[in-house]
C-alpha cells in the first residue's frame, strides 16, 4: 500500500470505550431502592438475628460483669505489673478507636473527594464508627483504676480546687476522643434525617394495612418516633440547599478531625521518652493503620450483611473491590512505616532505640511481631490480584486477618516497648489474665448488640444519597426524563 499526499500516516482509530460499572446494578428505579432498604426494617428479622442478638448480649454482659469485678476488686485482677503498666486496656482502646476511622474516612474524606461509591457504604461505616468509639471509650475509663474518679479527666470544678494538667497528651486524648464521638454522631444523625422521613412516610401509608389493634398501636408509636427524629423533613429544595451546605461543612470538619484523633492517640506514646514509642513517624503511621483496620472491619460486617439482606445490587462487587484497594494502599503504608522504624532505629545511632526494635522482632514477643507482619503487610498484598479483590468470601477472610493483625500491632507497640526497661533487673514478661481476655472479647458482644439493633431499626443504606447517584436522579439523562422536556432538561 502506498501513501498518498494528504492522507494521515496513522489511521484514525476509535479507542474502545471503557464502560464504568454502575453504582446500582440493573438500572433499578428510585422506588426499588426505597423498598429494598426500608424493606429490611419493615419485614421480620430472620431467625439468625435473634440468635446473634442473644449471643452478643450475653458476651456484652460478661464484659460488664468482669468490669464490675475489676471495679470492686482492683486492677490487680489484670496482668499489669511493673514494668508493663499499660496492657490490654490500652491495646484495646487503640484498636477500637482505630476501627472507627474507616467510617469517617468514607463519610467525610471520600465525600470531599467526590467519590460517589461512598453512598452505598457510608451509613453502615459511620454506624460502625460510633459503636467502635463506644467500645473504645470503656477502656481508658476503667484502666484509671479508681473508676469513680474518672471524671477528674474532664475540666470540672471540684472540691480540691484543682484543674487537669493540659500539658499531658493523655488529656488531649480525652478531648480528641469525646469530640470524635460527638461529631461522628452529629454527622451520622444529620445523614439519617431524610431517611427517617422516608420511614415515617411509609409507616403512614402502611397504617391502613394494620389488622389488629396492637399492630395499629405499634405503627402509631413508630410513626411518632421516626417522625420526631426526622424533624418534620419535607424534602424541600430550600431545605436541601442548607442541608447540603451543612453536610459539606461537617465533612470538611470531620476530615481534619479524623486525622487529628489518631495523631493525638499516637502522641500518648510518641510524646514519651521511651525507646520504641518516641518516634516522629507515629502520627501518620497511626492514621494509616487506623484506616487500614477500619476498612477491615467494614468489610467484615458488610460482606455478610449484603448477602443476607439481598443488597448485592446496591453494595456491588465494585464497592468491595474499591475498599480492597484502600486496604491495599493503607496496608502498604503501614508496611513502609514498620520498615522505616527499623531503619531510623539503626540510622539514628541510639543503642536503646535499636535494642527496642531488635527485641520487638526477635525478643520474647517475637511471635506477636510476626503475626502482625504476616497479617498487616503480607495479606493485603494479595489484593494486587483482581480475583482476590472481587471474591467476597476471600475478602472476608483477608479482612479477618487485617483485624487480627491490627490488634497485634497495638500489642506489639505497647507491650514490647515496655517489658524491657533500662534496668535489666526490672525486666519482665507480661501475660494477660482471664479478666483481661474476656473483658475484651465481651466488647465484641457490645459492638454487635449495637450493630444488630442498628440493622433492625435504622436504614443500613443512605437511601437519599444512593438515589442521587443513579441516572434516574440526573435531569440530563433519559432515565431522568430529559427526553420528555424541551431542550433536554437544561
Amino acid at each position: 500500500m502506498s501513501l498518498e499526499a494528504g492522507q494521515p500516516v496513522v489511521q484514525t482509530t476509535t479507542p474502545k470505550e471503557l464502560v464504568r460499572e454502575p453504582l446500582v446494578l440493573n438500572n433499578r428505579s428510585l422506588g426499588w431502592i426505597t423498598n429494598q432498604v426500608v424493606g429490611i426494617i419493615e419485614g421480620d428479622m430472620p431467625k439468625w438475628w435473634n440468635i446473634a442478638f442473644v449471643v452478643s448480649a450475653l458476651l456484652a454482659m460478661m464484659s460488664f460483669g468482669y468490669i464490675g469485678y475489676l471495679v470492686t476488686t482492683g486492677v490487680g485482677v489484670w496482668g499489669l505489673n511493673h514494668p508493663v503498666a499499660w496492657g490490654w486496656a490500652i491495646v484495646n482502646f487503640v484498636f477500637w478507636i482505630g476501627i472507627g476511622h474507616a467510617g469517617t474516612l468514607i463519610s467525610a474524606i471520600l465525600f470531599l473527594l467526590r467519590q460517589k461509591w461512598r453512598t452505598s457504604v457510608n451509613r453502615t461505616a459511620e454506624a460502625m464508627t460510633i459503636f467502635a468509639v463506644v467500645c473504645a471509650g470503656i477502656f481508658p475509663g476503667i484502666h484509671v483504676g479508681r473508676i469513680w474518679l474518672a471524671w477528674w479527666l474532664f475540666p470540672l470544678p471540684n472540691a480540691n480546687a484543682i484543674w487537669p494538667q493540659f500539658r499531658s497528651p493523655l488529656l488531649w486524648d480525652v478531648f480528641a476522643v469525646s469530640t470524635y464521638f460527638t461529631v461522628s454522631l452529629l454527622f451520622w444523625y444529620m445523614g439519617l434525617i431524610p431517611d427517617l422521613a422516608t420511614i415515617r412516610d411509609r409507616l403512614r401509608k402502611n397504617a391502613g394495612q394494620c389488622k389488629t389493634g396492637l399492630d395499629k398501636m405499634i405503627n402509631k408509636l413508630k410513626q411518632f418516633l421516626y417522625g420526631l427524629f426526622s424533624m418534620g423533613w419535607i424534602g424541600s429544595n430550600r431545605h436541601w440547599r442548607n442541608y447540603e451546605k451543612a453536610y459539606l461543612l461537617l465533612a470538611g470538619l470531620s476530615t481534619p478531625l479524623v486525622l487529628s484523633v489518631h495523631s493525638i492517640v499516637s502522641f500518648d506514646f510518641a510524646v514519651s521518652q521511651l525507646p520504641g514509642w518516641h518516634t516522629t513517624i507515629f502520627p501518620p503511621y497511626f492514621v494509616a493503620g487506623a484506616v487500614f483496620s477500619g476498612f477491615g472491619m467494614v468489610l467484615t460486617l458488610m460482606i455478610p450483611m449484603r448477602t443476607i439482606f439481598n443488597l448485592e445490587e446496591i453494595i456491588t462487587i465494585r464497592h468491595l473491590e474499591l475498599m480492597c484497594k484502600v486496604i491495599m494502599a493503607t496496608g502498604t503504608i503501614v508496611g513502609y512505616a514498620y520498615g522505616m522504624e527499623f531503619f531510623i532505629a539503626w540510622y539514628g545511632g541510639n543503642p536503646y532505640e535499636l535494642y527496642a526494635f531488635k527485641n520487638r522482632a526477635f525478643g520474647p514477643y517475637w511471635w506477636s511481631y510476626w503475626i502482625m507482619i504476616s497479617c498487616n503487610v503480607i495479606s493485603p498484598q494479595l489484593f494486587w490480584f483482581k480475583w482476590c479483590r472481587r471474591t467476597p468470601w476471600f475478602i472476608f477472610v483477608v479482612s479477618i486477618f487485617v483485624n487480627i493483625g491490627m490488634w497485634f500491632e497495638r500489642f506489639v507497640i505497647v507491650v514490647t516497648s515496655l517489658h524491657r526497661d533500662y534496668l535489666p533487673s526490672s525486666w519482665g514478661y507480661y501475660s494477660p489474665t482471664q479478666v483481661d481476655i474476656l473483658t475484651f472479647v465481651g466488647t465484641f458482644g457490645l459492638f454487635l448488640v449495637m450493630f444488630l439493633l442498628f440493622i433492625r431499626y435504622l436504614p443500613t443504606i443512605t437511601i437519599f444519597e444512593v438515589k442521587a447517584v443513579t441516572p434516574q436522579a440526573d435531569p440530563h439523562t433519559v432515565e431522568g426524563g430529559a427526553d420528555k422536556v424541551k431542550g433536554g432538561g437544561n
Partner: protein
Amino acid sequence: MSKFAIMAEYETPAEIMAAAKKVHAAGYQKWDVHSPFPIHGMDDAMGLDNAKVGYFTFFGGLTGFTVGMTMQWFMNKFDYDLVVGGKPLFSGFFAFPVSYELTILLGAFGSLIGMFVLNRLPRHHHPLLANERFADVTDDKFYVVIECEDDRYEEQATRALLENTHAVHIEMVEDAQ
C-alpha cells in the same frame, strides 16, 4: 380548613426542573420544590443564592478555639499554676490540640444548628405532612408547591401555569388549622 397551597406532582427530575424554571420566571416568591434527594442545578432553576450555614460554622469554630485557649490559660496559668516538668505554665503549643478539637466540636454543632435554624426545623405540623399524596416525596415523586399567600397567586392562573408543565397530578392542599 383553609387553602394552603397548590401542589403539582411530577415523575422525573427533568420535568420538575423545567416546571421550576417556569414558576421562577413567573415571579413567584412563596413556593418550593420537594424531592426525595437534592437535585443538581435546582438552586439555579429556583433562583436561590448561596446557603448561609457557613456563618454558623465559623462562629461555632471561633468560639471553640477561644474557649479552648482561654480555659487552658485560666486553669493552668491563672487559677492553679503548678509547674510540671519545668514546662511553661501556658503556651499556645501545648494548648493547641485541645483548642483544635473544641474548634471542630463547636463548628460541627454550629453547622447542624445552623441548618435547623435556617430551615425553620423541626416543624412537625406542616400542612404538607397531612397530605396523603405528598407522602411519596420521600420515595420517588417530585412536587412543586405554590403557597396561596404568595402575592402573585391566583387560583385559575396559577393552576393554568402548572397545567402547562409536565405535571401528572394537581391538587389543592388544605391547612387543617
